[in-house]
């Protein structure tokens, strides 16, 4: 920068450059202050709580806090053979404190999850301690080992040692049907008990197929809406927008009525002779119901982005393609279709994101074979109360969604989302 430009001064005698920078900064702060209330609100009530889900999902401090002396003594133990006297003594005094606080039951339950059979032997030990059967002047190791033969089994002590770290990834492994084996390595759950992997795959499968169905059904009507004269397309647009604005539960309810065994769809099939009256197919409480209802419910989210892209394509392009010798099919495939790809991307990603986290409709029409990962999260939140597992599963789902959201943002840009 030359010295002459620096000498341009404003009327106050401040160099122009400084003055402009100041004004720019002031404007930036002004703009930011307008966004700040919402940003702050969202961070406190939404973004941080989602972050907290992470701490909750890896948190395993309960046992760490319950058995401080045991874990202190275990630091010196190599974990291969039965632990030395100090570990037994540490465990004994920790356990006595728990009995005094009447929280020993929680320890038994938690250890039982780590290794089956813990609940009964901790209870047995508790009874011995309550009856003052343990003589503290003698070897505590010998006395505890006499309480039950499992206390002599090194695997049970290894299980206690595994619970020592205050953080654990066990919930995430459980979400993928894996667990920490006795020696600390990662092992697969038996094949007949791999329920979560089935759920993940089913969620992906249903989201994928719903997206494909929505695309196949949405593309033609978006094209029709974009090419029809305004007065007709406005009328037809209502068919897309009315379901869009109607309560999700109302739409799900109508599908429950339509798809039931005595419902209208089955009546129609009987009428045209497709199925026998006494052999009506079950269309609800299975995957069919989930597919049909979710496709209808998510279809507007496909049609609207496609429509807004198609609306901008000039009809003369197709005419030009045809006049240059392309058949209508070639003109469509080489000219029109490539121009609609941004709309296809936007619509498909939006539908996929919404479908992958769907909860209400699968829960009502899905039955056992139509439930998705969201239903499993809700189940653990409400029924088993295993909130840390629900958090872990939620975050696994969220990370998948965020990847798609990131792609969507790169391809479409969030500020280009169109509504209505």
């Amino acid at each position, binding site marked *: 920068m030359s010295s002459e430009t620096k000498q341009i001064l404003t009327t106050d005698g401040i160099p122009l450059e400084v003055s402009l920078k100041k004004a720019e900064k002031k404007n930036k702060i002004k703009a930011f202050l307008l966004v700040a209330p919402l940003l702050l609100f969202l961070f406190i009530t939404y973004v941080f709580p989602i972050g907290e889900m992470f701490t909750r999902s890896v948190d395993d401090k309960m046992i760490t806090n319950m058995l401080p002396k045991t874990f202190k003594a275990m630091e010196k133990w190599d974990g291969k053979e039965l632990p030395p006297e100090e570990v037994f003594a540490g465990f004994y005094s920790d356990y006595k404190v728990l009995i005094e606080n009447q929280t020993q039951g929680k320890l038994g339950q938690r250890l039982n999850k780590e290794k089956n059979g813990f609940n009964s032997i901790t209870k047995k030990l508790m009874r011995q301690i309550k009856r003052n059967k343990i003589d503290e002047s003698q070897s505590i190791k010998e006395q505890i080992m006499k309480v039950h033969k499992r206390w002599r089994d090194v695997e049970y002590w290894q299980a206690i040692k595994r619970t020592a770290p205050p953080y654990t990834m066990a919930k995430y492994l459980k979400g993928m049907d894996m667990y920490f084996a006795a020696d600390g390595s990662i092992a697969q759950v038996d094949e007949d008990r791999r329920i979560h992997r089935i759920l993940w795959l089913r969620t992906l499968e249903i989201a994928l197929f719903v997206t494909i169905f929505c695309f196949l059904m949405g593309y033609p009507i978006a094209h029709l809406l974009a090419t029809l004269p305004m007065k007709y397309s406005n009328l037809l647009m209502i068919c897309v927008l*009315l379901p869009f604005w109607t309560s999700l539960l*109302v739409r799900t309810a109508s599908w429950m009525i339509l798809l039931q065994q005595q419902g209208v769809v089955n009546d129609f099939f009987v009428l045209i002779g497709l199925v026998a009256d006494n052999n009506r197919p079950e269309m609800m409480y299975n995957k069919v119901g989930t597919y049909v209802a979710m496709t209808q419910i998510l279809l507007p989210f496909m049609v609207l982005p496609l429509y807004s892209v198609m609306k901008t394509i000039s009809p003369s392009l197709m005419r030009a393609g045809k006049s240059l010798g392309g058949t209508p099919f070639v003109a469509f495939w080489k000219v029109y279709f490539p121009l609609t790809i941004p709309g296809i991307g936007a619509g498909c990603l939006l539908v996929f994101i919404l479908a992958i986290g769907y909860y209400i409709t699968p829960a009502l029409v899905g039955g056992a074979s139509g439930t998705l990962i969201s239903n499993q999260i*809700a189940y653990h939140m409400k029924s088993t109360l295993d909130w840390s597992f629900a958090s872990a599963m939620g975050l696994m789902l969220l990370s998948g969604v965020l990847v798609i959201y990131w792609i969507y943002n790169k391809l479409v840009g969030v500020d280009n989302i169109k509504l209505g």
Partner: protein
Amino acid sequence: MALPSYTETRYRIWHYFYVAICTFVFFFLIAPLFVIFPLSFNAEEFLVFSEGMKRLDPDAFSFRWYHEMVYGTKNPWGLAAKNSFIIAIFATIGSIILGTLAALGLSSRHMPYKGLIMAVLISPMIVPLIISGVAIFFFMAKVGLAATHTGIVLAHIILGTPFVVITVTATLSGFDHSVTRAASSLGSNPVNTFMKITLPLILPGVISGGLFAFVTSFDEVVVVLFLAGLENTTIPVQMWTGLREQLSPTILAVATCLIILSTLILVTAELLRRRSERLRGINR
């Protein structure tokens, strides 16, 4: 969609096939809503068309379930409707205020990190509701707002603001900023300029965003299921319980009312959209 007379037969066939597909899809979209109307007037207790209804026998139809919905003993719909409206109205007001302010800031060309901030503000719309529900529940439980109206209203503000942000930013994208500068140069203070100049111009966007926020709150069930106690039940929660437990035709009467409500909202939103496009000079 008349075809020119010189169209070849195969394209003619293809064209009719295309029209047939479109007809089917439109039917698929809209028909499920209409099955609810006649069934809500069913005189019987079952959710299927009775023989009498198929013969259009007037005795097979009645207002029985509407009567049940309004005057039924121990029925939850009155409380649910009251709660739904209170929660939705407050959530809409909150979403409009926070969302409009944020949209004003985001539309300024001086705004730093625009893309990143926009992505955060829109995220409640993208993150699966079940995850939002879990996170919001943990927060509300910690601050002692679970099972209160305030907690649900705050949760619905979170879910509703993205819609307001999107619609208002869209309206502001065609906004001529010289009018606000003109107002300031004529001595108007920023608040006055906003109330007298900016707000009237962006009002269609604000209202249609507000409608989205209202519908989102009015229709939201996943988060409410986590947050609500018996006192805070809303219409969607009642419908959810009803659909899971006993499928009574009263639900269809409620559903019919909801469809009428959504039709009204759709008409308002459409009128506003057209007005806003006219104001922004988009002629189609």
